[in-house]
């Protein structure tokens, strides 16, 4: 144990003292925030630019009422000038574009014949906005044709807000569902990033010991298994420290940026969330509901979440990094690692895909459930499922399987590692690895 501690200490210090580690630790959050800020800033600037659009209404069905100016678009009526002349003006650059509404026999035909001319191809949101204006007005006209009073339509609009309960009688809301998705997705994504960054770091460290030829001296003092374990734990500690610093720095820098530049962080987040979740975010921005949100967050099984997060995080990392260590031991240099990397990375990516594709829509569906039990995908998928509440027996099976597989894989990897670190000059095949595993002692 004493030797293991010494190895962990060295691995940790060697990693942390490394210049690239220091640079990565302190620069990446800055870069991330600056990039994020830049995107928001540019989007804002983009929105601030007002587009001038004119319309030529040959049908005579539309009025100025239908084309009210918005924050980003100003409308002008050029019906008098006629479409041919207006198009010339647009071509000259006087306006951004012209919406042409021709005269047609029926509303249906008209709806299909409206055209927009512009020099640059317009963005989707602009066209969607124009379509919405046209559609609303045409629908109203149609309703009037059916002699339906628009007042009645307005009055009959009812919105329903279905409240969700689970069987322990706790009320949950869509907001908390969004929160659960976010928590799960972030946890799963973090785990994958962590495994990729620090797994390869373990691998590189093994290769370094092999190429510098110090490894035989070390294994004459300690068991190869101790060396491997020390490496994995040392790198994991360095990684956790880095993640911790990143977390703090991101928080601090975000605060500074939002204070200095007035970039609203909620807005920044919202810009990344797809449409249907946008409402949730807006809900969150409502100060009246803030108290409710905190209540909801408090109601999440924070401790359970945290403990499971730690368990799957470490389990997943140990499982994968022992494989990375075995690959590092098998080869002489990093270029030879490629053929062995794919089988390691594939289940990792699969886990993430399954997580994003199925867990979010149906956290307890068959694919999500199976993948959260299979050990190679379970760390990521289960982490994503956990916030939605997973039954204890499923958790039990998943955790037990992960532990068994983790112990087995570390044992297997240690066998490859033990033989591999003393093999030079030959690029091994899978057959060789199998032979190494069978060697005694």
């Amino acid at each position, binding site marked *: 144990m004493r*030797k293991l501690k*010494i*190895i962990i200490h*060295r691995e940790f210090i*060697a990693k942390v003292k490394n210049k690239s580690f220091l640079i990565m630790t302190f620069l990446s959050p800055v870069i991330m925030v600056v990039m994020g800020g830049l995107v928001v800033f540019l989007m804002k600037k983009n929105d601030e630019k007002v587009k001038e659009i004119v319309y030529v209404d040959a049908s005579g069905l539309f009025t100025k009422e239908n084309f009210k100016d918005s924050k980003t678009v100003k409308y002008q009526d050029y019906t008098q000038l006629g479409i041919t002349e207006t198009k010339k003006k647009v071509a000259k650059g006087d306006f951004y574009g012209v919406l042409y509404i021709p005269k047609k026999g029926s509303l249906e035909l008209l709806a299909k014949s409206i055209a927009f001319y512009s020099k640059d191809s317009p963005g989707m949101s602009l066209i969607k906005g124009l379509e919405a204006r046209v559609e609303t007005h045409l629908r109203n006209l149609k309703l009037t044709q059916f002699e339906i009073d628009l007042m009645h339509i307005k009055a009959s609009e009812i919105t329903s807000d279905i409240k969700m309960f689970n069987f322990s009688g706790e009320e949950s809301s869509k907001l908390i569902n969004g929160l659960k998705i976010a928590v799960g997705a972030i946890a799963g994504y973090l785990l994958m990033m962590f495994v990729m960054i620090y797994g390869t770091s373990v691998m590189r460290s093994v290769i*370094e*010991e092999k190429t*510098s*030829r*110090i490894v*035989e*001296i*070390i*294994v*004459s*003092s*300690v*068991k*190869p298994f101790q060396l491997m374990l020390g490496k994995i734990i040392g790198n994991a500690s360095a990684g956790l420290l880095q993640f911790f610093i990143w977390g703090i720095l991101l928080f601090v820098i975000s605060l500074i940026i939002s204070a200095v530049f007035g970039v609203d962080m909620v807005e920044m987040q919202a810009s990344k969330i797809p449409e249907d979740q946008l409402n949730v975010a807006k809900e969150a921005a409502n100060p009246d509901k803030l108290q409710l949100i905190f209540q909801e967050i408090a109601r999440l099984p924070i401790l359970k979440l945290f403990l499971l997060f730690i368990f799957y995080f470490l389990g997943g990392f140990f499982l994968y990094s022992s494989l990375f260590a075995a690959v590092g031991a098998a080869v002489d240099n990093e270029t030879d690692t490629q053929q062995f990397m794919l089988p390691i990375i594939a289940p990792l990516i699969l886990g993430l895909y399954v997580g994003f594709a199925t867990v979010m829509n149906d956290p307890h569906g068959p694919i999500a459930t199976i993948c959260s039990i299979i050990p190679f995908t379970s760390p990521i998928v289960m982490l994503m499922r956990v916030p939605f509440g997973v039954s204890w027996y499923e958790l039990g099976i998943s955790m037990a399987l992960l532990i068994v597989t983790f112990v087995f894989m570390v044992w297997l990897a240690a066998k490859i590692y033990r033989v591999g670190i*003393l093999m*030079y000059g030959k690029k091994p095949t899978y057959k060789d690895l199998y*032979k190494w595993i*069978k*060697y*005694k*002692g």
Partner: protein
Amino acid sequence: MDNLLEIKNLVKTYGDYTALNNVSLTIPKGSVYGLLGPNGAGKTSLIRIINQITMQDAGEVYFDGKLLAPDDVAHIGYLPEERGLYKSMKVGEQALYLAQLKGLSKSEAKKRLKYWFDKFDISAWWNKKIEELSKGMAQKVQFIVTVMHKPKLLIFDEPFSGFDPINAQLIANEILQLRAEGATIIFSTHRMESVEEMCDYIALIDQSNKILEGKLEGIKRAFRTNTFQVGLATSNPKEVEAKLKQLFTVSPADFRIINEGLKLNIALKKGENPNELLSFLTSQGQVQHFVELVPDANEIFIKAVNKNS
């Protein structure tokens, strides 16, 4: 207990390949023991088993009278042939690290390292990285790291590679000094002149088998051919040579002596007394050179290996 290491019927296989076939060795305390053999003979496998880097398939290793145990690594110092140090770690830090892995406390390790660094006059390197040092300098650090925990058993695999003659001599003297202080030394090398110079005992391993073991002098005696190198000043060399050819097996020899004359290698039959040859020679002329041709380690090596294959 007179033997530090007793190796009994050691077998090691890798798949279908047998690296060690029933090898037994006895290494006396306080000796310099030369472990010789061609490349791929199984020396490294044997050394790795002694260092507990790999495990034997069968057979036992006794260290200081007891079965070799994991804690014994603290009493063994190993300088492998494939060796190196962390390139980007500071010399002092990694020496401390390796010493701690051998079971020394940090303060004790510091004290001993200071002694050795002063002895080799390299204290100025403490904060340098290995990549800033020359190969010879790194080898010195490597040597210190091997011996600083005062092990009972030292295993050197090609210890002189990478050293210039001056530093090689420095290291050779240090090794002999360590033996004088009571350490037992296993010495694996292809440089036969250093075997002659340093080893008390040798063992020869070829094709996974031990083919020779014992005191160097004893082995030399066993390998001697009763051949003498002779230089004779005589007025009619041709006649003398013809006479000698009738009595002994004679071949021409090439060596330097001051006076010109007959130069021959003369092989006696087994049991024949060299005095008879000498008295015959003195009757024929003035004997200027009379030396028994004792095989050196190199010849023994080549002879034994050729015989084995």
